C-alpha cells in the first residue's frame, strides 16, 4: 500500500463508516469495530513507511502547494495517529456494551447516534493529523468541535447540555479567531501551506497579530489555563467513553496545531519570551488543576481537573524544546507524555464509568470498599495513576524524565520544581481516591453487574500506560522523522 492510499484510507474509511452508521443505525456498532480494525492496520503500515523512507507527502488533486492542499505524515503525525487509533479501538470496544446497559428508548437513541458521531470525531482527528494546510486545519477543527460538543450533549442531563452549550460557544468563537488569523497569514504570505510558510520564514506585525489570533483560539480549544473553565463540566458530565475521548484526544488536536505553527511555520516568531509565557501558563495549569482536583467531591470532576493539570505539562514543551541544547529531548519527552496521558486518562474515565454504573454514583466520599465491588477497575485506576504520577517504569515517567533532563541541562531549574511538585499533587489526589477504595466495609453492597469487556478495556489501557515506558526509545526514533527540533537525546556527560 502506498502512503497515498494509506492516508486516503485513514480519512475516508471513518468518514464513509460515519455516513453509513447514520443511514443504517443498526449497523453502527459493527461499522465502528470494522473501522477500528482497518484504521489500526493502516496506521501500522503508514508507520512502517515513515520509518523506512522518511516523511511522506501527497499532493491532493495532483497540484501541490501553494494552490493545492498537501497531506503530510512525519513522525509527529504518525505518533498522534497511533495514539488516536489506540484510544479509538478501546472506546469502540468499551462502547459495545456501555450504551446498551439499560434497554429503554433513551439508551437506544444514545447508542444509535453515538456511533456516527464517534466516527466523525475519528475522521476529523485523522484528517487533522495528516493535513499540512492551515486552512484545512480549520475545517477539521470544526468537524472535531461539532462532534465533540454533540457527544457531550448525548448524556441528555441538564448539566451535560449546559456544559455542551458552553463548550460550543467557546469552540465556535475560538474557530473564528483562528480563521481570521489564517486570513491574515494568507494576506501576508499568499499561501496556507505549512512547508511553504516555513520556507518563507516571514515576520512582521501582521503575522504577529495573525499568530496571536490563532494561538488564542487554539489555546481556548486546548483548555490551557486560564481558558480551561469550560473543560471540567464538559468532561465530567459527558458519558464515560465520551469523557475519555475528549480528555485523551480532542484537547490534544489544537495543541498539535500550536506545535506546527510555532515550531514549524513561524519559528522566527518563537522568542524566548513567548516560550516562557507558554511555560508559565502550563505551570499555572499544573498547580491550579491539581489543587482543584484535590478538592472535588465527584470522581469524574477530579479526573477532569487532573486533565487541566496534565495539559499544563504539554506546554512546558515550549520553553524546553525551544532551547537549542536538549531541545529534542524535551520535544520527545513532552510528546511521550501526551501519549502516556491519553492512555492513563482514558483508563481512568472508563473506570469512573464502571464505578458510576456499578455503584450508581461517583461521590468520592462514598466509595468505601469499592475494591470489593470492582477489583479490576480499581486496579486499573491505580495503574493509570502510577503513570499519571510519573512513577517508573510508566510512560509518564519516561516523558517526565526527558523533560527533567532537558530542564536541568538548560539550567531552567524552575520547571524542574514545577514538574516534581505536580507529580506529588497528582499522587495526593489519586491516593485520596484509592484510600476510600481500601476502606473496610462490613456489609458490601451488591453492585449492578458490569460487562467484563468494560472492566478489561480499562485495565488493558492502564497496563499499556505503564509498559509503554519501555517503548520510549522507539518513540524518540519515530519522532525524529521530520522533527522541526533537532539534536540528540541527552544522556548526560560521559564518564571515562
Amino acid at each position, binding site marked *: 500500500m*502506498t502512503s*497515498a*492510499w494509506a*492516508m*486516503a484510507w485513514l480519512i*475516508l474509511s471513518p*468518514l*464513509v463508516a*460515519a*455516513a*453509513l452508521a*447514520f*443511514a443504517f443505525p443498526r449497523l453502527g456498532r459493527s461499522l465502528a469495530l470494522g473501522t477500528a480494525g482497518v484504521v489500526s492496520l493502516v496506521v501500522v503500515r503508514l508507520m512502517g513507511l515513515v520509518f523506512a523512507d522518511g516523511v511522506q507527502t*501527497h*499532493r*491532493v*488533486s*495532483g*497540484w501541490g502547494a*501553494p*494552490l*493545492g*492542499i498537501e*497531506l503530510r505524515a512525519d513522525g509527529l503525525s504518525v505518533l498522534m495517529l497511533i495514539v488516536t487509533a489506540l484510544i479509538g479501538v478501546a472506546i469502540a470496544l468499551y462502547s459495545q456494551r456501555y450504551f446498551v446497559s439499560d434497554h429503554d428508548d433513551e439508551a437506544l*437513541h444514545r447508542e444509535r*447516534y453515538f456511533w*456516527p*458521531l464517534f466516527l*466523525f470525531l475519528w*475522521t476529523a482527528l485523522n*484528517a487533522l493529523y495528516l493535513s499540512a494546510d492551515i*486552512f*484545512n486545519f480549520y*475545517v*477539521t477543527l*470544526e*468537524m472535531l468541535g*461539532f*462532534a465533540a*460538543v*454533540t457527544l457531550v*450533549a*448525548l448524556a441528555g442531563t441538564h448539566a451535560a447540555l449546559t456544559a455542551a452549550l458552553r463548550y460550543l460557544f467557546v469552540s465556535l468563537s475560538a474557530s473564528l479567531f483562528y480563521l*481570521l488569523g489564517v486570513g*491574515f497569514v*494568507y*494576506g*501576508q504570505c*499568499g*499561501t496556507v501551506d505549512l512547508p511553504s510558510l516555513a520556507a518563507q520564514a516571514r515576520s*512582521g*506585525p*501582521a503575522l*504577529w*497579530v*495573525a499568530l*496571536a489570533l490563532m494561538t488564542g483560539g487554539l489555546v481556548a480549544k486546548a483548555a490551557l489555563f486560564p481558558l480551561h473553565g469550560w473543560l471540567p463540566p464538559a468532561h465530567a458530565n459527558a458519558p464515560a467513553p465520551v469523557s475519555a475521548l475528549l480528555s485523551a484526544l480532542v484537547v490534544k488536536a489544537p495543541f498539535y496545531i500550536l506545535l506546527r505553527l510555532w515550531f514549524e511555520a513561524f519559528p522566527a516568531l518563537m522568542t524566548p519570551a513567548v516560550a516562557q509565557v507558554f511555560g508559565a501558563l502550563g505551570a499555572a495549569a499544573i498547580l491550579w488543576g491539581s489543587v482543584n482536583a484535590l478538592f472535588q467531591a465527584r470522581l469524574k470532576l477530579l479526573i477532569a481537573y487532573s486533565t487541566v493539570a496534565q495539559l499544563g505539562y504539554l506546554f512546558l514543551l515550549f520553553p524546553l524544546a525551544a532551547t537549542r541544547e536538549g531541545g529534542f529531548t524535551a520535544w520527545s519527552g513532552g510528546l511521550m507524555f501526551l501519549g502516556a496521558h491519553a492512555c492513563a486518562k482514558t483508563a481512568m474515565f472508563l473506570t469512573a464509568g464502571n464505578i458510576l454504573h456499578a455503584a450508581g454514583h461517583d461521590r468520592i466520599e462514598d466509595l468505601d470498599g469499592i475494591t470489593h465491588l470492582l477489583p479490576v477497575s480499581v486496579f486499573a485506576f491505580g495503574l493509570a495513576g502510577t503513570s499519571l504520577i510519573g512513577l517508573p517504569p510508566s510512560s509518564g515517567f519516561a516523558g517526565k524524565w526527558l523533560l527533567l533532563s532537558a530542564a536541568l541541562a538548560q539550567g531552567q531549574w524552575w520547571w524542574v520544581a514545577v514538574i516534581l511538585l505536580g507529580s506529588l499533587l497528582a499522587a495526593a489526589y489519586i491516593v485520596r481516591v484509592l484510600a476510600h477504595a481500601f476502606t473496610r466495609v462490613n456489609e458490601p453492597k451488591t453492585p449492578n453487574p458490569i460487562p467484563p469487556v468494560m472492566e478489561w478495556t480499562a485495565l488493558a489501557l492502564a497496563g499499556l500506560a505503564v509498559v509503554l515506558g519501555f517503548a520510549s526509545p522507539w518513540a524518540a526514533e519515530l519522532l525524529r522523522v521530520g522533527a522541526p527540533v533537532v539534536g540528540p537525546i541527552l544522556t548526560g556527560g560521559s564518564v571515562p
Partner: protein
Amino acid sequence: MTSRVLVSVLSLALLAALGWAVLSLPFRPTGLTAESLVKLPESGVTNPVTAVLLNYRGYDTLLEVGVLLLAIVAVWSLRRGEWPASHLHDRPLLMSLLRVVLPVLVLAAGYLLWIGAFAPGGAFQGGALLGGAIVLVMLGGLARRVLAFDRLLRAGLVLGVIVFAAVCAVTMLLTGGLLQFPAGTGGTWIMVIESAALVSIGLTLGLLYFGGRPNAHHA
C-alpha cells in the same frame, strides 16, 4: 457593569490590533490569482471559484460535505423536530402556488449547478434554492409526507458524502492520487460530485430548518 467596561476595553484593544494588522499587510498581497488562472484549463471548469472549490482545494470540500452531514446528525441527535399544528394540515392557497413555483425552483437549482462550471453558481447556491423549496413544501403542510420517507431522507442526506468518497476511490484507482482526475475528465467528475452534493445540501438545509429528527406523529 465594570465587566462591560472591561470587555469593551478588551474589544477596542482587539480592534486596534486587528486594524493595525490590516494596514500593515502588503498593499497588494501576492494572492494565487495568476496561478489559479494558469491551471484553469486543466481543472475541467472555467469558473475559477468552482475550480478552487472542487479541484484545487477539492479536499476541503470533501470534509465540508462531511461537516454538513455531521450537522444534521447532531441536530437529529439533540431533539425531535417540533412543528406548529397550523402547519400540519394542507393549505390550499400555498399549495396552488407551490404547484407553479416548485418546478421552477428545482429547475433553477439544476441550472445553477450546471452554470457553476463557467460562471458564478454551483452546488452550494443550487443547494440553497433546493433547501428553500423543501422549506416551502413543509410550510405547505406536506411536512408529514416529506418526513414520512425516513429511509429515503437518510439516503439523500448521506448521498453527497458517499458519492464524493466513491469518486475519490475510483479516480484514485485510475490515477493513484487522491481526488486526482484523469486528464481531461475533470469536468465530468466535478459534475458527478456536485449533483450528489446538491441533493444532500438541499435536504440538509431544508431539514435544519425543521430543526430535529422526524417525529413519530410526523412520520
